[in-house]
């Protein structure tokens, strides 16, 4: 449909990208430039994350609606303890605030752990590693129109699994790893990016997340039940619901919040219980990786076919270590591990002009001259004419086959 053709580009015509500042020039014998203190690895972390407490706490750059989540939980629980507990302690039992308190503390702790824990981020490949992988990828220099997307097939428990090459992290992603575009990181056993907790949910914090939603459903259901009981007790004797609500206005707020949230939270807990029992991730379930949509006989190669063992392998496996070593000091030798600009894989400043999900660095294209950009959808390496910058966007959409339809 569109006339797609490759044209040679002149690298000098491109705006020089400003690479992420390298931690040091490699010639210093000390860890720092003279006036600067030693830097930790989190300060030069390439992903879109924010760090607090000198690297101990990690969150996604967009905190999403985490403040809202915290606010709702604190407000609802606070109103519960202020308005409902005194009445229920007097009329029923004093266990109620105790149970509520335990659940509330549980929910808060697991929420903060989910938000502040490294979900299983994979550090980006070092330049040497990336170059090694590049050499292995079949790049015979053919001039065909569309080079094949970069995938690698492995056999896991007699099931063929495709590993994709991540252009941002410059490596083949391990199985069940996915690249989160919001955080710009590859995350192991990627489940989903949860805006409510403001972080990705992956291998290392899935158990926190699961405990959070299960205890939150208990808490919400408990508060809902207590508030209903409280209002029913107040309203009995012919006084009516309106009278009860006037006496305890906080309960009205709790009722509304709990009523609308208990169904979704219970549903989410049920869904994740199903995922845990079948050793699936949300990502795989949504994509239907193991449901045999394509007609082939595919089964989940990670499932142990036993619910109990699946639950154990998801929730009770020993806690894996964080791979990004946030608080480690930057190395003093020449091998900078923070992915600064590599001669083979230049970073782009032009990517901000292009309106697709784009990798930060690109592989050389088959015609052996640097490629301006690369389509992460279909794996096509594309060369763009050195037209004016304003035209680059339309040129890109014209040339990319995946976007052309």
């Amino acid at each position, binding site marked *: 449909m569109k006339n797609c053709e490759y044209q040679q580009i002149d690298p000098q015509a491109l705006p020089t990208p400003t690479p992420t500042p390298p931690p040091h020039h490699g010639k210093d014998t000390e860890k720092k430039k003279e006036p600067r203190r030693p830097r930790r690895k989190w300060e030069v972390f390439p992903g879109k994350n924010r760090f607090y407490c000198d690297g101990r706490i990690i969150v996604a750059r967009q905190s999403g609606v985490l403040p809202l989540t915290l606010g709702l939980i604190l407000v609802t629980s606070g109103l519960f303890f202020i308005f409902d507990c005194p009445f229920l302690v007097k009329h029923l039992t004093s266990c109620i605030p105790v149970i509520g308190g335990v659940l509330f503390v549980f929910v808060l702790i697991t929420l903060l752990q989910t938000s502040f824990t490294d979900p299983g981020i994979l550090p980006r490949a070092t330049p040497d590693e990336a170059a*090694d992988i590049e050499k292995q990828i079949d790049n015979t220099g053919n001039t065909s129109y569309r080079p094949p997307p970069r995938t690698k097939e492995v056999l896991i428990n007699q099931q063929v699994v495709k590993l994709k090459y991540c252009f941002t992290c410059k490596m083949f992603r391990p*199985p069940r790893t996915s690249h989160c575009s919001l955080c710009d990181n590859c995350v192991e056993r990627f489940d989903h990016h949860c805006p409510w907790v403001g972080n990705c949910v992956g291998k290392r914090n899935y158990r926190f997340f699961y405990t959070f939603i299960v205890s939150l459903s208990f808490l919400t259901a408990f508060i809902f039940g207590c508030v209903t009981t409280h209002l029913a007790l107040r309203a009995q004797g012919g006084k009516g619901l309106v009278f009860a609500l006037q006496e305890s206005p906080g309960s009205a707020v709790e009722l509304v919040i709990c009523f609308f949230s208990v169904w979704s939270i219970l549903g989410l807990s049920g869904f994740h219980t199903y995922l845990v029992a079948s050793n699936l991730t949300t990502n795989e379930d949504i994509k239907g990786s193991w449901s045999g949509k394509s007609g082939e006989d595919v089964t989940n190669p990670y499932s142990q076919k036993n619910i109990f063992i699946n639950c154990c392998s998801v929730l009770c496996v020993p806690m894996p270590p964080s791979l990004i070593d946030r608080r480690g000091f930057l190395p003093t030798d020449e091998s900078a591990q923070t992915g600064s600009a590599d001669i083979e894989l230049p970073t782009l400043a032009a990517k901000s002009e292009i309106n697709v999900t784009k990798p930060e660095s690109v592989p050389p294209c088959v015609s052996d001259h640097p490629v301006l950009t690369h389509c992460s959808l279909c794996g096509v390496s594309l060369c763009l004419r050195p037209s004016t910058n304003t035209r680059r966007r339309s040129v890109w959409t014209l040339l990319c086959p995946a976007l052309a339809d």
Partner: protein
Amino acid sequence: MFHNLQELRHSASLANKVFIQRDYSEGTTCKFQTKFPSELESRIERTLFEDTVKTLNNYYAEAEKIGGQSYLEGCLACATAYLIFLCMETRYEKVLKKIAKYIQEQNEKIYAPRGLLITDPIERGMRVIEISIYEDRGSSGSSSGSSSVSGSTAR
């Protein structure tokens, strides 16, 4: 011939790096391929290399083992809202320390005398075992190799 690690670092120059990739045939558990890369053929015996990789694989399997003990630990951790992870060293971290010690020992005894150096996989995100090949600065060492066969697809 180098006699120890210090001598290696001071009098040798880095010639090449070999990357031993992960073996995913049994799932996502940490395991490395034992295939012997061709760049090391002239530098070290195949059995020594395979022993090192197999021992590392065993260490990782021990770290990730699911059994009665890990089930109890998981339940206990859940009951304490996982705060126990902030206080105690996890089993994985203990095994990682053992691995670091083992790699250091292997480097000193076996690999440095042959002009090789193993980098702990944890420093490479547990994706590869990086083996650096050093050449004596005096000799005309071969420059970085043009081809590498390590890390072929695991079938």
